[in-house]
């Protein structure tokens, strides 16, 4: 049965990720946008401000600087065999790996 209003079942996240996030006090995995992090109250904490305001700024600035986003470079650029898009896609992934593995654990733990 196809429903167009939200998802019937919560995201089944990897147990490894769930264990790691529990250590940072993130225990609700039901919604697509974590309710333990992305709330109006959290916006006025250092952690929330970095994740929402600074993160959003990086997304906008970086996308325009790179001349495209996941759709334009990774999907459409690679589909039409454009090597500058491959460079951009590798850079997107590198930035993400650095943030998720090296910087974000510090932000979630210490702030």
């Amino acid at each position, binding site marked *: 049965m196809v429903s167009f209003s939200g998802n019937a079942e919560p995201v089944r996240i990897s147990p490894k990720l769930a264990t790691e996030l529990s250590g940072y006090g993130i225990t609700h995995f039901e919604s697509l946008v974590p309710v333990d992090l992305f709330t*109006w109250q959290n916006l006025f904490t250092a952690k929330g401000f970095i994740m929402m305001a600074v993160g959003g*700024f990086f997304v906008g600035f970086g996308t325009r600087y790179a001349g495209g986003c996941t759709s334009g470079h990774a999907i459409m650029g690679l589909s039409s065999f454009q090597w500058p898009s491959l460079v951009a896609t590798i850079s997107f992934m590198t930035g993400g790996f650095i943030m998720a593995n090296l910087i974000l654990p510090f932000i979630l733990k210490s702030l």
Partner: protein
Amino acid sequence: MEIKEIIKEHKHHQFLQENKDFEVRSLDTMCVNESELKHPWWYNLKYLAAGALFGIILVKAEVISWFRIQEMFRLQSFHMFGIIGSAVIVGMLSVWFIKKFNIKTIYGEPVEIPKKKFSKGQIYGGLIFGLGWALTGACPGPLFAQIGTGASVIIVTLLSAISGTWLYGLVRDKLPH
């Protein structure tokens, strides 16, 4: 096609090939292959339909899930790689079909895919975007869909992203490209 139209089309093709303005336009994230035809505003409603469908797919595929993005960058799940990978394959087939059968737009215009030029921005900007992607769990499209799921605070993330694009325009001349 009439001779007049063929000439017009040829000129348009040359314009797309030789236009030196592309780099600036692509940096401005302005469309580089827009239609020359002028239509009343409500012709744009078809993009609303396509966008709404895209939004539904982003939610259904869990692409806008912050958790899925974390899994991707920690190599803990195949989910996102499978989605992006299959999207690239579908894209390749679409581009191949369009070129092979010379498929036109719904208004009969040819589909042109201009070549992208390398700039250092793809590296520096790409890295900055990657950092933001892992923080917010969203790239530009999903920001809108995240708001749509009821997470109203993401409006702040979206406004920050828009201010980022604005600041880029302000300091562009001082950045390496």
